[in-house]
């Protein structure tokens, strides 16, 4: 009775931006595929537009997209839904969830299995090695479908540079230069010269990678679950000390956890930000002065570290095919629909459009070629910075392939907490790094014990 009324209510509210799990349409109608994603506007809308393009391109399957809050909320919701036997067919999972998903056994449908069973072919040789490597097993079999991959880069506000007497077309390359620029910007009266989004990703994970420094043993966890954190190293001690000093002199301001720092740059408050290349779409829309006022550059490095800089690692998210629940499999039709949607995403024109619309990476070489030939990079200087940074250096190392830790979501929170405490002046750099190591290792051991068998 109640449920019926509630469904009626829901159906009446056509304004609600959600697609309800409508019962399957008439026999022979399209197979409905539930797709949960974690991208707020404007990215979420662009992503849903791609799903709609897929729906319009054929009539066998219909992808129903639902926004589930940020990445962590989406992950939690998907896992809870799996336990409840109502998992979505596809969930967008951020890269930190990769380790957890890989160990998830029958909760997920590995991509290579899905493609084999449905005879759908996707050419993964075309994918950038950094992207492919992140989501595949050691033997190269793909586990999830790469889609919105980004890497961290540096954005800066050209007006702020001009006001401080800096050349707006020449970004600082090293940390020493960043600090100098930040000091001049501060002297010019800017209250927030430098901040960062995704603090652990940009300042710990990316900085370690470009300096060829492992953050965890066993090649950042790719070698096995018995990995241990290695963040308390001279490079990170030096980097943290540097950040804390910048914090004290007022040239670095903490922008908050996760993506919160984006807002500070988008509003024009912060002059320099380290953020996901995927934030470009938002910045172009919101930063005062628009695209002409935004500079993009590679992440700064310490020039005296031998061999540095090499390639950065990716972030963003991939799409996982999930089983419905602990005791429920998908039908062949459903699997086929999922696979076809994935194949649609791999088309060069789809990947290329996503790249140019948003600032996420062109995940395949053919998409990159397509965009390059279109002259997009000449019209949008800096839009190819992420891909150049990903290809920097001559080889990918165990420290720069990616990170695969179980319970990484929790470890990131721990790292953010310890960073926050250090920036409050409660602890020095080595102490913060040591606490991260101790507390993070406890999470890793717990994950190892839970997933051993």
């Amino acid at each position, binding site marked *: 009775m109640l449920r019926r009324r509630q469904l009626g209510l829901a159906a009446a509210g056509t304004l609600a931006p959600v697609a309800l799990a409508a019962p399957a349409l008439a026999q022979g109608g399209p197979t409905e595929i539930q797709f949960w994603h974690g991208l707020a506007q404007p990215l979420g809308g662009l992503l849903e537009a791609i799903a709609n393009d897929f729906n319009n391109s054929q009539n066998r399957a219909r992808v129903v997209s639902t926004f589930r809050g940020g990445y*962590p909320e989406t992950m*939690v919701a998907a*896992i809870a839904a*799996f*336990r409840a036997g109502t998992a979505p067919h596809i969930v967008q999972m951020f890269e930190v969830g990769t380790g*957890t998903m890989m*160990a*998830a*056994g*029958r*909760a997920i449908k590995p991509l290579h299995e899905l493609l084999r069973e449905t005879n759908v072919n996707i050419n993964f040789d075309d994918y950038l090695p950094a992207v492919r490597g992140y989501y595949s097993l050691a033997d190269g079999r793909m586990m999830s479908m790469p889609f919105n991959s980004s890497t961290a880069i540096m954005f800066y506000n050209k007006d702020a540079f001009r006001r401080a007497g800096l050349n707006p077309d020449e970004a600082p390359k090293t940390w020493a230069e960043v600090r100098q620029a930040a000091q001049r910007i501060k002297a010019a009266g800017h209250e927030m010269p430098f901040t960062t989004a995704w603090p652990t990703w940009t300042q710990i994970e990316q900085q370690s990678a470009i300096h060829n420094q492992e953050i965890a043993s066993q090649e950042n966890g790719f070698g096995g679950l018995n990995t241990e954190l290695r963040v308390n190293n001279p490079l990170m001690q030096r980097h943290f000390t540097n950040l804390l000093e910048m914090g004290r002199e007022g040239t670095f301001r*903490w922008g*908050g*956890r996760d993506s*919160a720092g984006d807002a500070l740059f988008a509003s024009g*408050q912060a002059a320099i930000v380290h953020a996901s290349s995927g934030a470009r779409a938002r910045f172009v829309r919101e930063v005062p002065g628009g695209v002409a006022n935004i500079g993009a550059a590679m992440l700064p490095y310490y020039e005296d570290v031998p061999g540095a800089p090499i390639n950065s690692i990716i972030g963003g998210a991939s799409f996982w095919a999930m089983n419905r629940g*602990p005791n429920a499999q998908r039908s062949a039709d459903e699997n086929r629909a999922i696979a076809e949607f994935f194949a649609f995403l791999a088309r060069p024109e789809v990947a290329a459009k996503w790249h140019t619309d948003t600032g996420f990476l062109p995940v395949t070489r053919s998409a990159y070629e397509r965009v390059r030939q279109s002259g997009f990079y000449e019209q949008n200087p800096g839009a190819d910075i992420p891909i150049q940074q990903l290809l920097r250096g001559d080889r990918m190392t165990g420290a720069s392939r990616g990170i695969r830790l179980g*319970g990484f*979501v*929790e470890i990131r*929170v721990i790292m*953010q*907490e*310890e960073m*926050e*405490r250090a*920036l*409050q002046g*409660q602890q020095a750099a080595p102490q913060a790094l040591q606490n991260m190591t101790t*507390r993070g290792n406890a999470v890793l051991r*717990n994950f190892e*014990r*839970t*997933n051993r*068998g």
Partner: protein
Amino acid sequence: MRKVHFKGIALPYLLLLPQLVITGLFFFWPAGMAVYQSFLREDAFGLSSQFVGWENYADVLSDPTWLESAARTGVFSVSVAVLALGVALFLAVQADKHIRGADTYKTLLIWPYAVAPALAAVLWLFMFHPNIGIFGRMLNALGIPWDYRLNGGQALTLVILASAWKQVSYNFIFFLAGLQSIPRAVLEAAAIDGASPMRRFWTVVFPLLSPTAFFLLVVNLVYAFFDTFGVIHSLTQGGPGKSTETLIYRVYTDGVMNLNLGSSAAQSVILMIIVVVLTAVQFRYVERKVHY
């Protein structure tokens, strides 16, 4: 005790049935499950579990960050209770005086009872957000670096203020009722003795209010313990660092966000024990009052 009753056995059971079914399904069964799960280690997807004995309890009780949360919860709860009780008592004493418009004042002080804790937090965020809040900006303009998203002490202060703000009206209602039940004759006798108003309050009025005050203290502690989840969740999410993480918030993050089901269950059981103690204290007191 009633001496006359209706006959029948089926009917009373039938009348009790809905309540008993609900309590059984949604209270006792999950509580039992919490105890059971606290001895297991489970993966996030619920695909495997193993019996680990007291390991979850040992892990929780030896985790320094959990012990810090416990201490913080104590500081937080006592601060909220003292602040909310103090302000409420002060206002109740004023409103109890014979002045014009006393009823209007009462109405204007009672309504915040209707504000949800999470909503109270949002209202305080509007005032103290470092970028959009009027006071947040004012503090920064005065050269006091205010950002509760980075400064743990400021975050805790803000969470305490917002939590206490919401609770004052509740306490006010009870204190006022308590004050109004004090016989006028007692007060007039004290006045004739020539004692100063302050002295009169502490020697005559306050002792008569103390049962109410004690009852409210327990209620406020329980409130600060459990009902402030919404305040913390909407203001600080437990941060920065762990500086606003209370035990309840911890159960939530460990269970819902980090998916450490065993640890979360063990923490739940520990909390249940704390509630039992608090409730027992409360009802011991109620019993005594009945005997007066």
